[in-house]
């Protein structure tokens, strides 16, 4: 109901924002059933609103989480640079959501940002486990080099899985098929946008790569390219549009389509991606549901653009044009 009122043509921009904020809060409350089990497991993850709090743990190669606490908010730097990388990257991600989107941490309620580095659970990988970040180490024979924790877009990608878990009514986008590809894509979108924000880059200066420099050169330049899906690494199978959609394909494969839609919209709008396209995509999260399709995402982003910038503005046209170009609509 709140969303319908927000989308009413007579509503002012301020009224729309206020109504959508109320709708988000209500959606969060509805989603609490699915989120509650995580909070119940870790009540200490909740803080009072408006406070940034980071804890970084070391698993020392073991699988048990969270490990040993080695750096906490405001405390001295650790001797291990990976711990400091995780601290800095999660802090930058928090700052972006707070300053640019007025979101207080992952859940919008001041959730602690907990990270574990050197985890034995995820060699050559990093993931969000529902309550915290988990960073594995690179293996000698693997395709990667460096540190996932030092890669801001990777960290922002994973924390955005947490954001979408709380922002999409019903507990997040189901991580399979098109909704799963959207889940991946929204994380890539904010991974890239937050990296651009930290570098103060406009859409032309940005590389639009996810995990640039993490791969050994013989394997490729990055994990994914939002500008040119399918070209990031040697076996990159991401399609650029629906003609290449892989039925039953992995979520990291088909996410190339919505990723490119975001790139196209941001590029058409110009300037800084976080000022218009990023706001639109963030606002659209609350308009999705767990089994959302690419077509639903196209509709949600167009609706969000209309709410934020007006129904007949360049923003709606850019968003619609982008989804048409990738052949979703």
């Amino acid at each position, binding site marked *: 109901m709140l969303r319908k009122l927000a989308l009413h043509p007579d509503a002012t921009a301020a009224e729309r924002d206020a109504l959508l904020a109320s709708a988000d809060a209500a959606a969060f409350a509805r989603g609490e059933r699915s989120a509650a089990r995580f909070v119940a497991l870790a009540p200490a993850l909740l803080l009072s609103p408006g406070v940034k709090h980071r804890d970084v743990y070391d698993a020392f190669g073991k699988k048990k989480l969270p490990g040993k606490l080695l750096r906490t908010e405001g405390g001295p730097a650790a001797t291990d640079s990976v711990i400091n990388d995780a601290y800095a990257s999660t802090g930058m991600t928090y700052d972006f959501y707070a300053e640019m989107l007025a979101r207080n941490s992952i859940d919008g309620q001041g959730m602690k940002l907990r990270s574990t580095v050197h985890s034995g659970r*995820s*060699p*050559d*990988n*990093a*993931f*969000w*486990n*529902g309550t915290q970040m988990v960073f594995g180490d690179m293996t000698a*024979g*693997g*395709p*990667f080099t460096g540190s*996932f924790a030092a890669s801001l877009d*990777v960290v922002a*990608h*994973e924390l955005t*899985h947490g954001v979408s*878990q709380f922002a999409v009514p019903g*507990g*997040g986008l*189901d*991580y*399979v098929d098109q909704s*799963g590809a959207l*889940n*991946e894509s929204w*994380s890539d979108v904010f991974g890239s946008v937050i990296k651009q924000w930290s570098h103060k880059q406009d859409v032309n200066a940005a590389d639009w790569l*996810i*995990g640039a420099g993490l*791969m050994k050169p013989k*394997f*490729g330049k990055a*994990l*994914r390219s939002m500008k040119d899906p399918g070209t990031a*690494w040697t*076996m*990159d*199978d991401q399609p650029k549009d629906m003609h290449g959609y892989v039925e*039953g394909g*992995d*979520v*990291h*494969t088909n996410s190339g389509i919505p990723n490119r839609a975001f790139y196209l919209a941001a590029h058409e709008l110009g300037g800084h991606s976080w000022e218009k396209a990023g706001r639109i995509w963030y606002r659209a999260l609350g308009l999705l549901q*767990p089994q959302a399709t690419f077509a639903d995402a196209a509709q949600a982003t167009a609706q969000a653009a209309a709410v934020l910038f007006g129904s007949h503005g360049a923003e709606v046209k850019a968003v619609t044009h982008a989804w048409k170009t990738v052949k979703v609509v």
Partner: protein
Amino acid sequence: MKLTLRKIGGVTGAAGAVTHTLDLDALPAAQRAKALARVVAARLGGQPSRLFLPHPRPWDFRYVLDVEPSHAPTGEEPGGHHLELHLDAADPPLRALVEWLEQQGSPR
């Protein structure tokens, strides 16, 4: 019989997928028999080709299990299979097989 298990997920997706391969025919007879018993117990022939959770989340890694028979199926040894699953969607014998395979050999 060759078993191949691929685990895909996290931020890296296919780029960071970890693959475990086990050739049962290369194992000593006693180990081969134990491994084969695990495969038989998992009743792969009775499983759907996709065994996913109804509402998977980003931490539900996707496993792809391929069984390649070394000869025609017999009463003792099952035939070929291709199965994609989330670990929490698997029944206990299948989950045990997947978790055991994850411990076998040097992954890549």
